[in-house]
């Protein structure tokens, strides 16, 4: 059998890769090794300046102006060098790319360079206490004033980085008298505006990695509307598409590779002869290996300009469920010390149940993929073609 000749690269790719590798070889020793936020942001900025991040962003806003292939190669080289990459995922991977496609030129000029320079962090003001998977049910209300401003009232939740962010991209209801998806608008909220308050939200671990954000009579100008009034759903969907592909590609970042579970099991050398334990490890390994390989292959396909399929959402489902079973297995084989305070596994056991719902619950993801990828008919939707204000949820708001 001859060698497989898949994924060959052109000479131009080789040149870009060589340059990326050279820069990383020279500078990797300066990369931060702790979780210090300021250091991580500064390092992200250096990667942007070196042309290794923001690769596809337009040059006029400080990006590299290159294509998918170069972006993927840069990402591969950053991973290969074992250094941190993007810190501000919300700005760099979700809203920056969304604004490139959806924002007006003045808005791009205002927001994109700040993201690339690491000077302005972003947060996502989408989810609400009563609108999670059913995101189009948001109740945060923006009312237009005679002065050409919007006054925003409501509450957002599960907001990463809200306490550090300069801006939040808020999905708000501007017209409750049309069907739910049609009455939404995306508005940029300066997080230091009067009326914005941020409260840490403690999770299973006891730590507060997310926030609640309260918006009380927050006034923002018309210029802060992205993509037009009433078009918020399309802009939000664009952002969620970037979020899902970012999550699918960051399985490595979550450090839930099978190697990590196997390394922990070395605490018991006898397990190498324990057929039952090996069987159970194999059961988890197949899922985590398949996801890791799937991500690596997806990077190659993105390099060739292929759009990620909505089915990438299944990677998260596989990853989270397999990792939860992996934690169960570690507990059963290594005992209660797995749950000791400060143990890396305590952290995993704590954050995984929440991850299952992040970016949409598993059930809603499966519905989505069943409809969009497999072409199955949707569930009957009594909320689709009626004004939001006449729905039970909308009316109660």
């Amino acid at each position, binding site marked *: 059998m001859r060698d497989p000749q898949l994924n060959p690269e052109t000479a131009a790719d080789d040149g870009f890769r060589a340059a990326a590798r050279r820069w990383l070889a020279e500078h990797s020793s300066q990369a931060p090794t702790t979780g210090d936020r300021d250091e991580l942001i500064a390092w992200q900025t250096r990667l942007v300046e070196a042309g290794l991040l923001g690769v596809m962003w337009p040059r006029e806003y400080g990006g590299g102006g290159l294509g998918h292939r170069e972006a993927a190669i840069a990402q591969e080289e950053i991973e290969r060098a074992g250094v941190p990459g993007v810190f501000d995922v919300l700005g760099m991977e979700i809203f920056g790319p969304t604004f490139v496609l959806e924002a007006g030129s003045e808005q791009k000029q205002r927001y994109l360079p700040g993201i690339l320079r690491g000077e302005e962090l972003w947060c996502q003001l989408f989810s609400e206490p009563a609108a999670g998977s059913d995101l189009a049910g948001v109740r945060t209300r923006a009312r237009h004033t005679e002065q050409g401003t919007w006054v925003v009232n409501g509450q957002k939740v599960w907001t990463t980085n809200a306490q550090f962010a300069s801006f939040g991209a808020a999905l708000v209801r501007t017209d409750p008298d049309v069907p739910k998806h049609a009455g939404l608008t995306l508005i940029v909220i300066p997080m230091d505006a009067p009326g914005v308050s941020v409260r840490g939200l403690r999770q299973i671990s006891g730590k507060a990695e997310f926030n609640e954000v309260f918006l009380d009579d927050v006034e923002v100008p018309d210029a802060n509307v992205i993509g037009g009034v009433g078009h918020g759903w399309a802009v939000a969907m664009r952002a969620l598409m970037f979020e899902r592909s970012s999550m699918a590609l960051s399985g490595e970042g979550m450090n839930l590779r099978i190697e990590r579970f196997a390394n922990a099991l070395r605490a018991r050398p006898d397990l190498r002869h324990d057929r039952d334990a*090996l069987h159970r490890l194999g059961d988890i390994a197949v899922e985590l290996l398949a996801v890791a390989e799937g991500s690596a292959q997806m990077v190659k396909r993105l390099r060739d300009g292929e759009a990620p399929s909505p089915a990438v959402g299944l990677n998260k489902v596989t990853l989270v469920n397999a990792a939860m079973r992996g934690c169960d297995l570690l507990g059963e084989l290594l005992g209660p010390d797995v749950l000791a305070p400060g143990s890396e596994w305590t952290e995993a056991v704590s954050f995984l149940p929440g991850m299952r719902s992040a970016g949409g619950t598993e059930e809603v993801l499966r519905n989505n993929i069943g409809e969009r990828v497999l072409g199955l008919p949707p569930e009957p939707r009594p909320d689709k073609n009626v004004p939001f204000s006449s729905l039970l949820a909308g009316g109660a708001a």
Partner: protein
Amino acid sequence: MSGTTTEAGDLLAELRAAITAAMSRSDFVASAREDTDTGVVGSCWELARSLDLPAALVAEQHGGLGFGPAEAIVCLEECARSLAPICLPSHWGGLRLLEAAGEPDLDQLVADAAQLAFAPARPPVIAGEPWLQGAAGERAPLPKAARRNDGWSIDGTLRWVAGASRADALVLIALEGETPTAFRVSPGDPGVTLTSVVRFDHTTDLAHVRLGDAPATPLELAEDELARSWALHQAMLGAEGIGITRRCLEMSLAHARERYAFGRTIGSFQAIKHRLVEMLRLVEMTENCTTWFADAWNEDLDDTMLAGVAARVAGDRAQQHATSSNIFVHGGMGATWEHDAPYFYRRFQLRRLLALGTEEALVELGARVLDRSWETADV
């Protein structure tokens, strides 16, 4: 190097279309139904021969198509999707070892489209464990090889060898002392007894092979090559699993979009939809593993071994869910003789038990993952 991923992908897509078109001229599900009735095991060897499939993996200078693992995987997927009654992993596994050993009559075997059968054997994955072969529940030892005056002879039993009852030559691994060695055996020779067996699936030719002082020709192969033959066999089983799962998903989807109950198509119910999405999830996982295998082949032995067993486990998982869910989605009618779904189910019920079986593959996968961790720690 020439071309891009996309061009390589286009070539594979063309290959896939060609195999699918050729296979679609036969209704192998109908044949399986008929064969199940009459008790025979089907064969599509002549069709495979007309497509040059038997020698697809052999180098072009020996009369083959020179396919690599990526192309082999496509062929296996499409043959399995049509439920073709053929045991290509067994045939290809045997022929590949003959080619690797430089057997002088290879070109003739290719020209004659001779059928080979390979009895796959697993190298030790747990310290102190011997090479193993056979079906689930057996963990049988390898036959013994001994020198005799004019050559070699083999003693032992190989049970549940796919493709063996129609084979013109058998390829097996036997122990010469402690050393595993591949041998070639002629089914017609004295000392070789073949007993055909039929178990539930009439698309899989099976036989028990008894070797009593049977004459054999050793194949000059490194032990790594024998290990790779196991990985390749498992990866090929994974590829067949992709075809079976994809077909079950297609059948289920068609039904779920059309069947009307409780005022709407049943595919709109989450309970059905999620079952079908699970088929998609499992088959895509298997595809990730077979692609990984194709990339690792010729690159890295450890990765090849790991990817091979991962593909097998993933493919079996996918079929486990898909072949039974396909019946459930079709309700009572899916469980009848007239429906197509049971023939995919029957095939998987048997095939999951061959080559040591799925559960033993999970043990192997766990052992390989843990070993790799220890090796990293030892460096």
